[in-house]
């Protein structure tokens, strides 16, 4: 029993000492790429598979000492969206391209503040297709809200919400599927 408590105490002290030397909210620059795939059903049409491939960059800059101060968070990405049929039917063969591969891009800017135990950033951005196609119902440009939160000191626990398309490094946890009109 005593040995167990002593071990727990030592582990706890070690954990706390590690946390102290970590920056709470360091400034970072990220570049990367992603791929996603999901199915959808076209109105009055076949079931399709929608594939997205994208690359992008994410800059998170903290203006202050030891990761505490004003935060500027900028993200941008570009990629392609392709739509192919999944099942054969009377009008479409399997694997047939339904819509031409489109180049799409997005950008987001968020501003916030980071304290020792809590940080946040709120912002907005825009998403659109390079060829001016309708990407969200009747609109050629889609609004992309953004929100990011950090809880605790030097912990990996962060929450992010918003929408982004195409997905770029560190992108937020919700996304709009492409509504393609042709």
């Amino acid at each position, binding site marked *: 029993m005593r040995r167990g408590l002593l071990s727990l105490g030592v582990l706890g002290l070690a954990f706390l000492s590690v946390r102290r030397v970590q*920056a709470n909210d*360091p*400034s*970072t*620059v*990220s*570049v*990367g*790429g*992603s*791929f*996603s*795939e*999901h*199915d*959808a*059903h*076209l*109105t*009055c*049409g076949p079931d*399709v598979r*929608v594939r997205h491939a994208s690359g992008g960059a*994410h800059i998170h*800059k*903290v203006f202050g000492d030891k*990761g505490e101060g004003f935060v500027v968070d900028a993200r941008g990405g570009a990629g392609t969206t392709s*739509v192919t049929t999944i099942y054969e039917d009377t009008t479409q063969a399997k694997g047939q391209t*339904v819509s031409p591969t489109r180049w799409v891009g997005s950008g987001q800017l968020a501003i916030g503040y980071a304290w020792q135990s809590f940080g946040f950033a709120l912002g907005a951005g825009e998403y659109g297709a390079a060829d001016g196609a309708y990407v*969200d*119902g009747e609109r050629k440009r889609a609004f992309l809200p953004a929100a990011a939160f950090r809880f605790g000191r030097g912990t*990996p626990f962060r929450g992010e919400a918003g*929408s982004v398309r195409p*997905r770029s*490094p*560190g992108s937020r*946890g*919700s*996304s*709009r*599927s*492409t*509504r*393609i*009109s*042709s």
Partner: protein
Amino acid sequence: MQTDLERRTGIYGRGVYTLAQPVRLGAFLGIESTFGRDRRIGYSTGLALTFVLDE
């Protein structure tokens, strides 16, 4: 012709490995689902190189 499913959301997991200070390699994998009557499951995955500026 239009897709009849507008929005997707999901749960994402991310892992970060320090290649060499201050360079980190991150990878994420997410399971996504559409909203609406006709719910569909999808996935999203990616890699990112992160440079920590103030470490």
